[in-house]
């Protein structure tokens, strides 16, 4: 995988930014630096091609609105981290994978297929009612609240572990 005309220093700078943002938020990147760099090169290529940083492991449509869910970090990252220990690309991984004690798994595609997405966008009312079902989690250490299927693996504010969260609502 090459940078498709993107200068090395641009890719390197992007890797560093993504790594810093990840660490600041309590996320970890894949322990293989070449793998990370290749994925980040893919993100830079997609940004150049489409005008937004679409997931390098998914085919972007070129229409930002259709692809909001797959702009990296994607809507599915945290659910995949929670369920599989890695995001779909394995750019973001769990502590076990980051430490090299667990191999990055093959994560099945969670994003609905094209036909299904089309149906979902035509039927927006279903999404509105779903919002009310999303639980709210509270970090017992710092009080951080978040509305999502599961608490984050690491609290982005105080870095407490997932098991320190309790259901708030």
């Amino acid at each position: 995988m090459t940078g498709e005309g993107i200068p090395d220093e641009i890719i390197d700078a992007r890797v560093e930014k993504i790594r810093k943002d990840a660490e600041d938020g309590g996320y970890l990147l894949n322990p293989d630096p070449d793998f990370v760099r290749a994925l980040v090169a893919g993100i830079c290529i997609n940004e150049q091609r489409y005008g937004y940083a679409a997931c390098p492991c998914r085919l972007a449509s070129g229409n930002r609105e259709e692809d909001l869910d797959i702009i990296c970090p994607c809507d599915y990252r945290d659910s995949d981290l929670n369920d599989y220990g890695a995001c779909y690309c394995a750019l973001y991984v769990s502590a076990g994978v980051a430490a090299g004690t667990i191999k990055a798994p093959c994560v099945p595609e969670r994003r609905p297929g094209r036909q299904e997405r089309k149906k979902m966008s035509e039927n927006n009312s279903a999404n509105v009612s779903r919002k009310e079902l999303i639980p709210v989690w509270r970090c017992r250490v710092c009080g951080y609240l978040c509305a999502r299927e599961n608490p984050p693996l690491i609290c982005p504010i105080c870095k407490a572990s997932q098991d320190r969260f309790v259901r708030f609502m």
Partner: protein
Amino acid sequence: MQMEHVKGRRRGEIILYALSTCGWCAKTKNLLGELGVEYSYTYVDRLSPAEMEDAIREVEKYNPSGSFPTLVIDGSRVIVGFREAEIREALK
């Protein structure tokens, strides 16, 4: 559709639908290279819009989620994602 052919040991008609930007697609392609099998591949993200649409429809036929990599062996066996053990087993 534009396909690149890689020569090697004949283990049936092997087609890899991949993205040029995807890490798992690269790993799958490397594995096929390591196994030394003959195969064809296409980087769907690099196709022209018309060819891309054809390729997406073809991938969806084998793999309704339309995800990559999708590996098709003899038009019947389909392996979605970099499932290393499964690919090794199918092409040994």
